């Protein structure tokens, strides 16, 4: 399993107010494209689907929230939510397109620099 679910009852919230239901997925707040890609490729399709479903259900609210912040001046909790939304984009590749974690007939990762 690539990404640990970190939500623990009673711990400090890591996401903005109103997104407590997504706390269990805060391990998907990955800052770089490479980390997000690796998390997708090393995940299994069932757990990718669970994350995808949880995020898609809240996507309209996430987008409305992200519209309020300049991209270079996000508070930490919003930045995490933003990175989780970027992970949703990455994970949608597996869930919506290939129905498996990796690109079918994809290129050698070592020679594809991000």
């Amino acid at each position, binding site marked *: 399993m690539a990404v640990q679910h970190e939500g623990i009852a009673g711990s400090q919230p890591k996401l903005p107010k109103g997104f407590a239901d997504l706390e269990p997925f805060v391990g998907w707040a990955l800052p770089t494209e490479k980390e997000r890609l690796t998390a997708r490729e090393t995940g299994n399709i069932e757990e990718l689907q669970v994350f995808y479903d949880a995020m898609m259900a809240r996507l309209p609210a996430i987008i409305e929230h992200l519209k309020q912040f300049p991209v270079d001046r996000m508070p930490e909790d*919003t930045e995490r939510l933003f990175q989780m939304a970027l992970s949703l984009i990455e994970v949608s590749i597996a869930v919506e397109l290939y129905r498996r974690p990796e690109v079918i007939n994809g290129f050698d990762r070592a020679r594809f620099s991000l």
Partner: protein
Amino acid sequence: MKTIMKERRWVEKYPELGTGPVAAEPCISPEYFELERERIFRRTWLNVGNVCEIPERGDYFVREITVANASILVMRGQDGVVRGFHNVCSHRGNTLAWDEKGKCRGYLTCNFHSWGYDSAGQLKWVPDEANFFDLDKSQLGLTPVATEVFNGFVFVNLDPSPRENLTQYLDGLDQQLKGGDFDKLKLARIYKIDEKANWKIGLDAQNEVYHLPFQHRYIMPDLFLANDKGMVRVLDVTFFNRHSLYSCEMNPGHKPTPLETAMMELQRSNATRCRLPVAGGQFDFYLIFPNFVLIFFRGPTDDVCLTYNFWPLAVDRTIWEIRFYTAPARTAAEALADEFSTTRNRLVFDEDAVAHETVHTGLKSRAKTQLFFQDEEIQIRHFHKIVEDHVSLARGA
């Protein structure tokens, strides 16, 4: 929809390009590659980047043009002018700048004996100068390379005296691309793919839309406008001497995925950031000979520019450099929409790069000596003809 679905329509417009098979040998021949090196890469205008990479005075970037055995330093002088030089010290030929990008603060100095150059390439500082013999610093600046900027894109020509300036070389393509918010574009992302394939194989694979419903069946089986049999048809093909353009319309019946639907809605709700001179459809592909591709995607409120540079390292090895240029996102929501576009496009490169290599492997076996192009692949036919025109000059034919 403006696209005409009639078959074999481009050969009627461009009968001079013919309809017969095309030789495969130029894609695998080391001798042919040597001729391309001499006649094409050392004598044509090559895109090496964009002025947005060097916004401030003294900023520079370095490009290794391996196929021409050249390292090129592109620097913005204190006078604001963008100049290109061979990245070679005048003392004993050492490589001057070692970083891919940097800033000349005062002098750019050579690591070997600290000879120093200003941001206009003039030699200004020689340690122990009095111990040299008849050294004229004013004559020992960096060797200039013909450098011109078009819509922000920086081109160099390694010919010491180019026969055409960039405008003449672009031959009408510059007029086609007048207007638009090119000055707003910033480099958003670079991917580099190191392929075991000839540079023309990679370029050819991108230079047509016939393959989309097949090779990209998982990711965009129906994105581009197609006829009633599902075969993609382009809106227009235009040639500008050596260069080409094909434009496509998007399929109004395309079935978006749930996330894609949400991202399209998001894009529509964002304010316009950047508009580019899109030719009539929603997708334009310009091949600026020999190895530069300029792509525009028309979005609902924002246009994206994507470029490819196919840099040959050898007859069977190429760096496919992919760059995304956008007007920078202002809100986190805009950045999200940009990331969706970049990421979905990345899959196309992932799938295509594999096929570039498998085609090269197939051709290398010499099992097949000819390539067959259909009417919707006429752009490739044109490109191979232009390559051959350049190479045959070298043979003295």
